[in-house]
C-alpha cells in the first residue's frame, strides 16, 4: 500500500532571472515499510524532494498524496497539523530543543498532540529504551554526544507513530561508530515496527543498508533500484 504518491511533480525556483528546476517531473511512490534512500550529487534535488513530501514546501506542478491527503489542497495551518500527525522529521543537525531534557524532547510532539501525561511517559520510556538511551532520560542536548542527540531526534520523530520518517542526511555529522549504531536502530524499527524511512544522503553506509535506492540528477529520477 502506497504511503506516498508523487505524480509528475515539478519545483522551480527563480534565481535572479534564471528559472532553476529543482525537481523536474518526478513520479514516485513509497510503500508502508520502505527503507529507501534518495541519492545524487549536490543540487540534484534530494532535499527539495524530501521537503515536498513532508509538506514543508509546495510543488509548482504535479501532485503529492500522503496518507490520502492531497498536499496542494491543504491550507498552511492544515499543513502544520498534517506534518505533526503524519510525518516524522530527522534533520542533519539534530535540531533538538536545547532547554528541554532528552525525555522532554521526545515528548514534545506528544505534548503538541495533547497526549495524556501517563501515556506520554510510557511512550517516552519505550522510545528511550528503543534507542538505547534510558539512562539519559534527564540529560539536556548539550550533555549528549552527536550520535546520542540524533538517536533522541529519531525517537522524537517516531513518538506519535507517524506514517513515515523523512531523514535528511541523518548521518552527515556523525562518526562511523555513531552512524552505524543509528542505522542499526533505524533498521530495527523498520523491521520490527514496519516504520517507513525515506532518507536523502551521500553516505555510502546508508546506501548499503537501503532496500531501495533512487538516484536523482538535475531534478530527475535517473535510476530507481530495488534490492531484495
Amino acid at each position: 500500500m502506497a504511503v506516498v504518491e508523487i505524480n509528475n511533480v515539478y519545483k522551480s525556483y527563480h534565481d535572479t532571472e534564471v528559472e532553476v528546476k529543482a525537481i523536474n517531473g518526478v513520479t514516485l511512490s513509497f510503500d508502508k515499510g520502505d527503507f529507501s534512500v534518495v541519492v545524487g550529487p549536490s543540487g540534484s534535488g534530494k532535499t527539495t524532494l524530501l521537503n515536498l513530501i513532508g509538506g514543508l514546501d509546495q510543488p509548482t506542478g504535479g501532485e503529492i498524496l500522503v496518507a490520502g491527503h492531497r498536499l496542494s489542497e491543504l491550507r498552511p495551518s492544515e499543513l502544520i497539523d498534517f506534518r505533526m500527525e503524519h510525518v516524522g522529521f530527522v534533520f542533519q543537525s539534530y535540531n533538538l530543543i536545547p532547554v528541554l531534557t532528552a525525555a522532554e524532547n521526545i515528548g514534545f510532539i506528544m505534548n503538541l498532540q495533547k497526549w495524556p501525561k501517563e501515556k506520554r511517559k510510557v511512550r517516552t520510556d519505550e522510545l528511550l529504551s528503543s534507542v538505547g538511551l534510558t539512562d539519559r532520560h534527564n540529560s539536556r542536548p548539550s550533555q549528549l554526544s552527536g550520535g546520542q542527540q540524533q538517536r533522541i531526534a529519531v525517537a522524537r520523530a517516531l513518538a506519535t507513530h507517524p506514517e513515515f520518517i523523512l531523514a535528511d542526511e541523518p548521518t552527515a555529522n556523525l562518526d562511523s561508530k555513531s552512524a552505524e549504531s543509528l542505522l542499526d536502530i533505524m533498521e530495527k524499527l523498520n523491521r520490527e515496527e514496519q516504520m517507513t524511512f525515506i532518507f536523502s544522503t551521500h553516505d555510502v553506509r546508508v546506501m548499503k543498508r537501503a532496500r531501495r535506492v533512487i538516484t536523482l540528477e538535475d531534478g530527475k529520477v535517473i535510476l530507481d533500484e530495488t534490492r531484495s
Partner: protein
Amino acid sequence: MIIEIAWKNVWRNKTRSMIVITAVTIGVFAGVFSIAAMNSSIVQRIDAAVNEELSHIQINNKDFRSSSDIQNVIADFPSLIAVMEATPGVINTTGRIVIKGIASTASKSTGVEITGIDVEKEKKMFTLSKKLIPGTGSFFGSETKFNTVFIGEKLAKDLNIIRYTLTQEAFSKLETEGIPSAVILKLGSLGDQKYPTDKKFSNAVENLLTSSEKNKFSLKIKEAAWSYREGSKIILSFLDMNNNQTGAAFRVSGIYRTNNDMFESLSVFVPVNELRELTGMKEGTYHRVIARLDNNDLTDVVTRGLRESLPGLEVLSWKEIQPDLAMLADMMQQIYGIFMAIILAALAFGIVNTMLMAVLERTREIGMLAAIGMNRRKIFSMIMLESIFLSIVGGIMGMLVSGIVIAATAKNGINLVKYSEGMEAFGYTAHLFPTIDVQFFITTTILIVLTGILSSIYPARKALKLNPVDAIRGE
C-alpha cells in the same frame, strides 16, 4: 508546555537576560522613586495648605474677597453653620474674622492678614498649633492681661523679634550635634555677641568658616544661635467697623514655623474676641467660615453641594483659592504619566532588541518547531511569553526595590537642606518623605506587563515570518 519552554528560554542566555532584567529594574525603580519623591513634595504642600493655611472649604460674604472691607460679614452665621453641619462629609466648622492690617515693631513694619480665631476650635481643626517653635511660648496658652498674637517665624525675623547669639548653651548644643571642635573653636570669637538679623549673623559666621564648613554646618549653627526675645510685643494696626484707624500692642504668644515663608510672613492669628473688641464687630459676626471634610477627595463634591445650598455666599474649595497648587497637582499627574511613558518606552526598546536577538539566534530552532508541527499561534505565544516574563521579572524587582527604598526613606525623609531656602519661599518643604499610593503600584505593574506584551509583537511576528525550509537550512 509553551509556558515552561518560554520560561526556560528566558534563562537560556542568563547574562543577557540578567542585563535586561537589571535594566528594567533600574528603570522602574528610577521612575517610581522619582515620582514618589516629587509626589511627596506635592502631597506635603497640599497637606500643609489644607491643614495649616486654608482648610478644605472657605465660605465668605460674596464681596469680601474682592474688597476686603471689614463690613462685608456673613449675614446669618447660625443658619450657615446649621447648613454646613448637616452636609455629609463636613466634620468641623468654625468662623473667622479676617482683616488686613500692619504689624510693626520699633524698627520695622509690614503688611499682614490678621485672623481672629476661636482658639479651642482651631486647635482641634488645624495643625498650626503644632507648628509652634519650641521655646517661643505657646498657642495662646498662657494667661496675660495683654492682647496676644501667634505669628510666623518669617514675620518674626522681618520684625527683628528674633536674634542670634552664640551663648554657652548654643556651643554645647553644637557639640552634641557633632559639629567638629575645630569649627566650634573658630566660632569662639562670636561668643555672646548679639546679631539682630539672620543676614548679619550669617555674614559673621561665613567670615570665619571655609566654604565647605559653611555648606555643611551653617544651618545647624544658625539653629543653635536662634533665640526669641521673650515677651516681645508687636503693634497691629487696622481699620475698625467705623473705618477708623485703630490698633493695639499684642504680646507674641508663640512663633510658628511652616514650610511656607509667604504664609509665615503674612498670617498672624489673634483670639477672635480680642479682635472683635478692637474692631467693634458684633458678637456672632464673621467674615469667613471654614470647613474641614472627612476626606480631601470629597472636596469638589461638597463644594458643589454647598454652592447650591448657599447661593448668596461665595463657596470656595482650597483648589479654587490656590488654583496654582491644584493645577500643579494635576500637572504633576501628567508629568508622572510622561515620565513613566519614557521609562516604559526605553523598557520596550530593550525588550524588542533582546527578543529580536533571541529570535535571530534561534532561527533554525524556530524553523524546526514549525516543521515538526508547532503552529503559528504557539510560536507567537512562546516568543510573547518570553518578553512578558522578562518584563514581569524586571518590573516586579523594580517595584520591590522601589517599595523598599520608599519605605526606608519615608521614615526619616530625604533632607534637601541645600535647597530649603528656595523651596520654602514657594511653600514647599525641603524635607521630602517619598510617598506613593497602592493604585500607582498596581497601574505601573499593569503597564509594565502591557509593555512586555506590546514589545513582543514585533519579534514574535518576525519569528512567524520564518520559512521552515530556509530556517532549518540556517539561512
